[in-house]
C-alpha cells in the first residue's frame, strides 16, 4: 500500500500543510452549507448575497441570510468551541476519554432544560414546546443556568480538591445526579414535553437566530481567545501536576482558568445547540492523529479548524437533499465521527502504549 504524501512531511511543514488544508476545507464546506439544502442556490448567487449585492431572487437572499448563514456560523462556533474544550479536558485530566461534557456541564444544561420543558407543562399548564421563539429562548436560558450552576459547583470543588482524578470523578458523579433528576422529571411528564426534551437532546444548529447570535458569538470567541493564553500551562500539564508545579506553573490558577474556559464554551454552546458532546471528544483525537504532536501551540489552532470542518461537514450531511428538513445533528456527528476516530486510533502507531 502506498503511503499518502503527508507521511513524508515533518514538523513545521506538516503542520503548515495540514492547517492550510483544514482552512481551505472549512471555507469550501462553509460555502457548500450555504448552497445546499431543500433549495439549491447557485454559488455565484450565494457569493453575491454574502457580499451584500442582493440576488435575482429575494427568497434566496432570505434563505441564505435568515436561515442558512446563522446555522452555518453556529456550526462553526460550536465545532471550534467544543473541540477546544475537549482538548483542554483531555490534557488537564490526562485522560483520552475526557471531553467538554466530562465535568457534568452538559448534564447540568440538560437538567435546566428539563426543568423548564417538563415542569412548565406541569405547573403552568402550557407546554413550552408550543410557544415557538420565546420557548427557544427560555430553553437556552434554562440550559445556560443549569450549566453555570454545575460549572460553579465544579469550580468551587476544584479549589478544594487537590487531585485531578478526584475532580474528574466528582464531575462525573454530578453528571449522573443531574441525569437522575432529569429521569424523574421525564417519568412524571406529559408525552409531548418528553418529546420536546428528547428533540433538544438530539442537538441542532438551526435554533440560533441572529438575535441570539449576539450572545453565542462573543462568548465563544472569548473562550477560544482565552484558550490560546493557556498554551503554556496546557503543555506542561501533560507531564502531570507535580512536574508542572516544579516548572514554575501556578497549578491552581491554571486549572481554574482551564475549567472556566471550557465550562464557558460548553455551557454556552450546549445552551443554544443542545448537548453535542461527541464533537468535543472526537475532534481532538482526530487532530492529534493527523498532526502527530503534543504541542498545544500547534494543537489548539488545529482543533479549532478541525472542529469547524467536522461540524460543517456534519451539518451539510444532516441537510442533504432527501432528508426532509434536517437530521438531528448528534446522530450525524456520532455516525460519521465514531468510525473515523476508530480508524485513526487503529492506524496510529502507538496502539499498545497508553497516553493522552
Amino acid at each position, binding site marked *: 500500500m502506498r503511503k499518502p504524501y503527508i507521511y513524508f512531511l515533518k514538523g513545521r511543514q506538516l503542520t503548515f500543510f495540514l492547517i492550510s488544508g483544514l482552512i481551505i476545507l472549512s471555507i469550501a464546506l462553509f460555502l457548500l452549507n450555504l448552497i445546499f439544502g431543500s433549495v439549491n442556490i447557485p454559488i455565484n448567487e450565494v457569493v453575491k448575497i454574502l457580499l451584500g449585492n442582493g440576488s435575482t431572487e429575494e427568497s434566496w437572499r432570505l434563505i441564505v441570510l435568515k436561515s442558512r448563514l446563522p446555522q452555518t456560523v453556529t456550526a462553526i462556533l460550536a465545532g471550534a468551541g467544543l473541540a477546544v474544550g475537549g482538548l483542554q479536558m483531555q490534557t488537564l485530566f490526562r485522560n483520552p476519554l475526557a471531553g467538554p461534557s466530562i465535568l457534568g456541564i452538559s448534564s447540568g444544561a440538560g437538567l435546566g432544560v428539563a426543568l423548564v420543558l417538563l415542569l412548565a407543562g406541569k405547573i403552568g399548564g402550557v407546554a413550552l414546546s408550543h410557544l415557538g421563539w420565546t420557548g427557544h429562548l427560555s430553553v437556552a436560558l434554562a440550559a445556560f443556568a443549569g450549566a453555570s450552576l454545575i460549572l460553579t459547583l465544579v469550580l468551587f470543588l476544584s479549589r478544594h480538591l487537590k487531585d485531578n482524578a478526584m475532580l474528574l470523578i466528582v464531575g462525573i458523579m454530578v453528571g449522573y445526579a443531574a441525569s437522575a433528576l432529569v429521569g424523574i422529571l421525564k417519568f412524571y411528564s406529559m408525552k409531548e414535553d418528553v418529546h420536546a426534551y428528547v428533540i433538544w437532546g438530539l442537538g441542532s444548529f438551526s435554533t440560533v437566530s441572529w438575535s441570539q447570535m449576539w450572545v453565542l458569538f462573543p462568548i465563544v470567541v472569548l473562550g477560544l481567545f482565552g484558550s490560546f493564553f493557556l498554551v503554556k500551562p496546557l503543555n*506542561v500539564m501533560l507531564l502531570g501536576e507535580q512536574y508542572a508545579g516544579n*516548572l*514554575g*506553573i501556578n497549578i491552581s490558577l491554571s486549572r481554574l482558568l482551564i475549567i472556566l474556559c471550557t465550562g464557558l464554551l460548553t455551557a454556552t454552546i450546549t445552551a443554544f445547540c443542545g448537548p453535542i458532546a461527541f464533537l468535543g471528544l472526537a475532534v481532538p483525537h482526530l487532530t492529534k492523529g493527523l498532526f502527530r504532536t*503534543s504541542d498545544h501551540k500547534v494543537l489548539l489552532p488545529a482543533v479549532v479548524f478541525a472542529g469547524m470542518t467536522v461540524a460543517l461537514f456534519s451539518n451539510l450531511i444532516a441537510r442533504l437533499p432527501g432528508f426532509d428538513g434536517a437530521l438531528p445533528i448528534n446522530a450525524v456527528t456520532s455516525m460519521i465521527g465514531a468510525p473515523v476516530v476508530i480508524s485513526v486510533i487503529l492506524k496510529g502507531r*502507538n496502539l499498545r502504549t497508553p497516553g493522552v
Partner: protein
Amino acid sequence: MEPKGQSLISTQSLSIGYNNARQGIKVLHSNINVKLGAGEFACLLGPNGSGKSTLLQTLCGFNPALGGEVFIDGRLIDTISNREMSFLSSVVLTERIAVSNMTVLDLVSLGRTPYTGFFGRLKSSDHQLVVESIKAVGLEGFEDRLVTNMSDGERQKAMIAKALVQETPLIMLDEPTAFLDLPSRIEIMHLLRKLAHERNKGILLSTHDLDLALQMADKVWLLAEGRDMETGTPEDLVLTNEFRHFFEREGILFDNDTGQFTIEKQKVKTIRIVGTGVEYKWVSRALARRGFAASDEPFSGFQVEIKSDGQRQYLLTGPSGKTHKLRTIEDLLAQLDHEEATFLTD
C-alpha cells in the same frame, strides 16, 4: 537563618509525614537534620514505607513540613514561590510519563518552561541547550523518538535531560533506577554522579540499590523507621556499623566485609576450602549460601579442593573420607547435600 550559599539543602529538626483530614497528622519521621552541598551526589536509602518519597516531596516543596525547617539555597522553603523554586530545584519523579505524540525533544524542551515567554516558545539558545543536554545524557539521535516508544532506561535519561535544561543548582530524583535492569541502573547512577561532579550540581536521589549507592554516592542518607536519620560517607557508615544497625532484621545481616546483605543461617557449619583467587571467592560464596563458613582449620568435616590448572575441578572430601571429583559448582553443591544427608542419617 542559614547563611546563603553554604548548602543547597539543609534541614533543622524537620518532621515529615502527612496531614490527612480524616486521620489527622501522621508523623513518619522527625528530627531530620541533613545538608546537601553543591557538587555532592547523595543517595537516600531506606526500606519501603520508611518515608523516602515523603522526605523528597517535602524537600521539593510538594508536601508541607509537619515541623522544623527546610532551607533551600539558604532560604526557608515556605517563603519560596513555585516560580522561584523552578530556578532552584528540578525533579524527576517515579511516575512513568506516557504522552502520545510527544518526542524526546518536546519532553526535554518542557524543562525550559521557567525561562520561556508567554507561549513557551524556545529561543535558539534554549534549543541549543536542549540539544546539548540530550547529548549529555547519551540520547543523541533520539531527539525525534516518541517517549511512548522508548525503554524505561531511555525515558529516565530523557527526564534527567529535562531536569538539566532547567539549569537548577539542585536536582532531586525519586527512585530513578526503579524498574530498570542492572546495566541501566549502573548507567544512570554513573551519569548522575558525573553530572554532580562536572557541573557542580547537588543531586539527591532515593534508591533501593544499596550496593550501587555504596559504590558511587558521596553521601548516603539512611532513613529507617524508629531511628534518627543518619548521614555520612558510605564508608564511615559501614565502619561505624550504621548500615548493620539500620538493616538489622531477623535473619538479615549486613556484612561489613563484603558490603552485601547475607541471610543469617541458624547453624553455621564450617568447611575447609583449598584454593586461590577468583575461584576461591565464588566457591566460598556458593558454600556460604548453603550455610557453610569457610575455615582454615585442617579438618572440619568437609573439605573442598579447587583445581584450576587446565580443567576446572572440585575435589570434595566428606566426613566419610571419600573424595568426589566434580566439574561444576552446581554438582559440588548437589554432592555436598547428598553427603550431608547420608552423614546425618548414619
